[in-house]
């Protein structure tokens, strides 16, 4: 693989160049919350303090709320207008876990139908990865076979190797962004070796582990074990943090809002943790809390593996570190009995 490098001091120059052609999104710290927002062009200090965002990158393609269509009744008929999205953008600083999550929801929004709202943003976005040099104590990406220095699903991968950032060119789109011979140099053998060594040392920093081997079938076998799920759900308060902030959760709700003769149709994030989830056709089929908790776990580790062949969890740990009651999915998964030991339906 071709590797290049840039001195950290020159990163600002590079971002300045990109900013001319793209809407450039970088990690921003505001009100003690790390978020992804338009770069103000001031500095690149985030490279040192940034760990990961609260809101995952899905929000760039599937915003918490968006207008799908607006309509107005006029004399000669109804006028419809579909908003146009899809400004060319670069997201700089996506961690390997989150890069995987983008690939997972790409599948969701293209597999059975093509979601034009999602794709108009997604197709116009270049994703630039940044190796994770400071995993949280809630992170368990390595259990999902993700390395903190992982180049999958990004256009370029930047890795902090000290004074320089190592750049791995992954896609042609990414490669095209590096045409700055005075600041971007060819990486030496020593540089790439440093990057290689980080694969082991950073993976060792991910201390939380969970064995997810055969989880799809283990969950299938204990699906009707009400006692297990009631215990797993006992302390859950049923808020939307773990699902809204999960990088692979994608459920949305659609609502029309009207005022006299005009209005709009919106979609907004929805969560299977909510009691009012899917109440619009009739009622939520998962009346009790434990059924909703089971849905959340099984959707990630049983249903999507069965339907799309992918585990919808990246071990980013948001659901653990942001949970109001420290509901910890790794503890629940660890408690799922081996297939043979599963109790039968009660």
């Amino acid at each position, binding site marked *: 693989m071709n590797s290049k490098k840039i001195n950290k001091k020159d990163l600002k120059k590079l971002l300045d160049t990109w900013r001319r052609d793209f809407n450039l999104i970088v990690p921003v710290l505001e*009100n*003690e*919350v790390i*978020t992804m927002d338009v770069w103000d062009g001031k500095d690149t200090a985030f490279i040192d303090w940034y*760990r990961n965002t*609260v*809101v995952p990158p899905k929000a760039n393609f599937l915003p*918490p*709320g968006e207008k799908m269509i607006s309509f107005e009744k006029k004399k000669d008929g109804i006028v419809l207008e579909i908003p146009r999205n899809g400004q060319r953008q670069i997201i700089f600083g996506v961690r390997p876990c989150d890069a995987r999550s983008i690939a997972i929801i790409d599948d969701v929004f293209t597999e059975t139908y093509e979601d034009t709202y999602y794709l108009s943003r997604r197709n116009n976005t270049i994703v630039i990865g940044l190796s994770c040099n400071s995993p*949280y*104590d*809630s992170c368990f990406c390595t259990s999902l076979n993700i390395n903190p220095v992982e180049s999958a699903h990004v256009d370029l991968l930047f890795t902090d190797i000290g004074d320089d950032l190592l750049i791995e060119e992954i896609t042609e789109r990414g490669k095209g962004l590096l045409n700055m011979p005075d600041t971007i140099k060819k990486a030496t053998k020593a540089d790439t070796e440093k990057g290689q060594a980080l694969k082991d040392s950073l993976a060792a920093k991910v201390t939380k582990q969970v064995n997810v081997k055969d989880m799809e079938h283990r969950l299938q076998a204990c699906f009707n074990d009400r006692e297990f799920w009631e215990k797993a759900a*006992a*302390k859950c*308060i*049923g*808020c*939307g*943090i773990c699902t*809204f*902030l999960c990088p692979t959760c994608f459920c949305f*709700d659609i*609502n029309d*809002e009207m005022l006299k003769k005009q209005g709009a149709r*919106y979609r*907004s*994030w929805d*969560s299977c943790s*909510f009691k*009012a989830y899917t*109440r*619009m056709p009739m009622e939520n089929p998962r009346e009790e809390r434990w059924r909703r908790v089971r849905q959340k776990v099984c959707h990630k580790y049983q249903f999507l593996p069965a339907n799309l062949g992918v585990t919808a969890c990246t071990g980013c740990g948001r659901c*653990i*570190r*942001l949970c*109001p*009651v*420290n*509901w*910890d999915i*790794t*503890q629940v998964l660890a408690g799922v009995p081996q297939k043979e030991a599963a109790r039968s339906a009660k």
Partner: protein
Amino acid sequence: MEKELRKQANRLLEEGTVDCIIGHAQGSLKFTTTPLITGDKTEISNLIISPFMHNNLANYLIRRHGKTGIVAKGCDSRSIVSLIQDKQVSRDAVVIIGVPCSGLVDMAKLESLTGKVRDQIEAVTVAGDKVSVKLNGKKKEYPARQVLFDHCLGCEFPTPQEYDCLIGEPVAAINDTELSSKKIADIKKMAPQDRWAFWQKQFSRCIRCYACREVCPACFCERCFAEESQPHWISPVPQWQDNLVFQVIRTIHVAGRCSDCGECERVCPQHIPLRLLSREMYDLIDEMFHYKSGMDKNAPPLMTAYEMVEAEGLIR
């Protein structure tokens, strides 16, 4: 203290006085605790008392069946009493194990003081009015007032007001209302248009995860106006105006029930300073109705009763 707590919890289960104990256990991450809800005596040894026992466990009494033993700090006990006043919980159905509380550590404050994130801090110990922190092998001491939650600094009743047994001795309140309400005083000083801009900015971040509502023992409604669709009182789409209206209505709904436990603000993943609203309402209730929530289980809920003293300045 923990030994005594476990002894009491064990006794309650053993005697069959309760079929379930709700308390705090060590969390899976550094400086976290997690609610322990169990009827299993073997799990009682996991019960802890800690400066990180943030959760207001009264929340778990709502729609719970059977008889429950519950660990309660001062604010939690007031929430329980408030639920009793609202007839959501029967006094006979709970055994309150009171735990006097010297204040909880606000990790966000500690993070900004140390410049480190929670999991990069090695150890935190609270001793009297000092909090000592271990960072890179070195110890550093901070006055507790810099590290405890704002709501703990302004707590009037750190010792439970209602209990069946009390673990340890009552503790004195810090009751530093000036420090506790400094942020409220600051926004009151703002020009109205600046204050409006401030709230617009804060509520622009809201993603409507409803953690503030779900964690709140005073928010016990089975159906919330926020999800009603005929009509839509507020739009389900997160926009700052609707987010703000949601929180304002919620604040009014919990007026006279809120014990200023601070959970709504602590759990907000977007760090929206919700206590600026809830504590202001708490103080307004005190000022207008001479009422403090959750102090008397036999009193009618604030909004269901009228007394002549309320007339001053209220009805014009």
